[in-house]
Every structure is written in structure tokens, then in C-alpha cells.
């Protein structure tokens, strides 16, 4: 077993892991952060998307030991501590960006990463759809998700 220290949603957390333990397993099973979902477990669906040092990654395809000493943000770290939803989360609710909700944590984390990556540039529908290539949704047909991300991005940058 290896001891690792992660900064998760701003707080330092330690865990004892095997080298083969995946980041998503540590988050869910050791740290109790079950908002990060395991969908396909084969790096396709993006339900396990978290931010590592500010960049979106698939936590099912990343070893926990690789994240030792680094910053991890999960869906639990997105809303305010008092429960007020982040503008992106609020936009998903407002624009019907989810049905069953299973893919939603990954969608929101990808949405936040794409806003960050396109800072200062418009996030049009084509760009959003292209940037969502790593996230699958089996309910919505994506239309509500795309609308939600456009509205969330506008709200985050003060344009909406």
C-alpha cells in the first residue's frame, strides 16, 4: 500500500491505496465522494470526469498514485458550501440538461473545463458539441445539455 495526499475540493485528504487503484475508486470508495460516477469504465463515457490541476480528465483512466500531491476538483466542489448551485449547475436545471442524471456530474465538469479553455471566446453550439465528444448521455439527445452549457457559460462570464 502507498500513502497519497490529494487536495480534493480545496481540502487535504490522505488515503492508503494500491498502485493499481484508480483515482475514481479513491474518490468514491475511500473519500466517500460518490458524485463522480463510473459509467462505462472504459474511458469513453466521461461520467467520471474530474479536474486535475484545473484540467478535465477521466478518473477511471488515471491511477490514484499519479494524482499524489495534486489538486482534484469533483462535482462536490462546484456548488457553494451553503448548497447554492453553481451557475452551470443552475443552467442544467433550468434548461432541462438532464433526465436520469447519471452523466450529469461529468457533463458539468466538462462544461466548466470548456468555459475555462475558451475564456474570452464565444462558446457557440458547434464548439460546445465538439467539446462534448468525451461525454455520453443516453437520455437527453444532448440538445438540453448544449443549451444549458451555453446559458451556464454566459452566466459565468456575466453575459447572460
Amino acid at each position, binding site marked *: 500500500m502507498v500513502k497519497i495526499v490529494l487536495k480534493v475540493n480545496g481540502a487535504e485528504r490522505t488515503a492508503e491505496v494500491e498502485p493499481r487503484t484508480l483515482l475514481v475508486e479513491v474518490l468514491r470508495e475511500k473519500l466517500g465522494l460518490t458524485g463522480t460516477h463510473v459509467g462505462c469504465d472504459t474511458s*469513453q463515457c*466521461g461520467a467520471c470526469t474530474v479536474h486535475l490541476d484545473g484540467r478535465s480528465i477521466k478518473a477511471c483512466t*488515471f491511477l490514484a498514485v499519479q494524482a499524489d500531491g495534486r489538486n482534484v476538483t469533483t462535482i462536490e466542489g462546484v456548488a457553494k458550501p451553503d448548497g447554492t448551485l453553481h451557475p452551470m449547475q443552475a443552467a442544467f436545471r433550468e434548461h432541462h440538461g438532464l433526465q436520469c442524471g447519471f452523466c450529469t456530474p461529468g457533463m458539468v465538469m466538462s462544461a466548466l*473545463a470548456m468555459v475555462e479553455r475558451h475564456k474570452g471566446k464565444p462558446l457557440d453550439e458547434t464548439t460546445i458539441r465538439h467539446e462534448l*465528444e468525451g461525454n455520453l448521455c443516453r437520455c437527453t439527445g444532448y440538445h438540453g445539455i448544449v443549451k444549458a452549457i451555453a446559458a451556464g457559460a454566459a452566466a459565468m462570464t456575466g453575459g447572460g
Partner: protein
Amino acid sequence: MYTFDYQRPATLADAVKLHGASDEASFLAGGQTLIPTLKQRLRHASVVIDLGAIADLKGISVSGNTVTVGATTCHADVAASADIKRAIPALAALASGIGDPQVRNCGTIGGSIANNDPAADYPAAVVGLGATVHTSKRTITADDFFTGMFETALEPGELVTKVSFPVPRRAAYMKFPNPASRYAIVGVMVADTSMGIRVAVTGAGPCVFRIPGMEQALTKSFVPSAIKGIAVPPGDLNGDIHATPEYRAHLIGVMAERAVAMIG
């Protein structure tokens, strides 16, 4: 996954030494192929040597007519690099189309070419642009590096350290992606370089290959119609549930013509 030990050396020398000390060591770069294959138990490693802490292996530099990309530079960094967009826009565009954003934030050029997946994008860039692969032991020209399906000229324990691309006069990469995986069903890099016109194809065969007939035709006349009818025999091409060898042969022509048209 089977169990394995994990090491995170700080220097290239230590990484190579650790590999030499074990029978079944695996280097870990971005992990976007290695981790899935370990998960499926298609592969076993006694020790996984994480290259992520070796600063020398990461980064992009442009000097004179050469763009150098460190082995552990991720696809997202190549895609976003202002220097690469200016010097070799086709290389930045190719990197921006690999996998998806999350994969591009992890996957690396060194990992991609060392793995040499027949449907990977980077081999087309490395061969098409006539790059040089630098390793822990030597330098290898692109034409000598890729030797077969998932096979390269790398010896056991030999590590890719960087890839240097000569800046072409002009180049374009066109790919027909698998709609689910974004791997290339067929991808073609056409480049007008100081070594002549180069046409490199990925996705279609067991390994990236060039098409001398198209290169000669484009040398005479650099227009899409010059390569119309130059066919690649489907006999040596891949066939799977996504595309037959005949369809891939057809797509090579279409993608090559589109790449030439894009260059203009």
C-alpha cells in the same frame, strides 16, 4: 488489473535504470492506452514507471526550422500551442482531433508513437512531416521508426524523449474518424517538405505507410486531380466492423485529395 509496483523517477537516467532492473516493466506516459489495457488484463506489468515527474521530457520548443515536442507533452498542449499553430498548423490541428478533451489532457506524443496503434493520428504526422524520433539511446528517422502493427524500432527499455519536426512549406491532415472512438478509420497527412512531397496514411493498414505514387504525382502537379485514380490495393488494408479494406482503400484517395485541396 493485476497488481504492480509503481515508481515515479525524477530523471530519465533513473527511469531507464528502473526499467532495466525488472523483467516486465512498463513506462507510463499519459496512460490512455496503458491503463485500459492493464484494466482489461490484456497486459501485465511488474512495475509501472511513471514518466510524469521528469521535467526534461515535457515541453514544446521552436528553433529555426524545427519544432521539437517533448515525449510527455500532452495532445491538448500541442493543439493549443501558439508556436506550433504558427509553424506547423497541420500538427496542431491533428492533435486537436485526437480522442476527446479529457483524453487530450492526458495522452502524450511519446506514448502514442511508442504504442503505434494502427489507428492513431500521430504516426501520420511523424512520417508525413519526416520527423526525427529522439530516444534515450539514439535518433531514429520517421521512416525507420514504425515497423508494424503496435511495433516500433524501439528496443526493450528504450524510451522516446522527444520528436523533432522540420517545418514544412505547407501541410494538411484529413481524417475520417470513427464516430464513437475518434480513432482514424483513415487519416492522411500530405506535406510539402524540404525532403519533397510526402503522403502518409494511418488507420488504413497495420501500420502507417507512405504512397510513393501520390508523392510523385503531386511533385509534378500539386492539385487534387493529380492523384485521382492512384489506388492503394485493398489486399493489405485492415477490415473490421467499421470499414472493409475496399472502403478504406477508397477513403485514402478521398482524404488525400481533401488534404491537397485544403493546402490549396
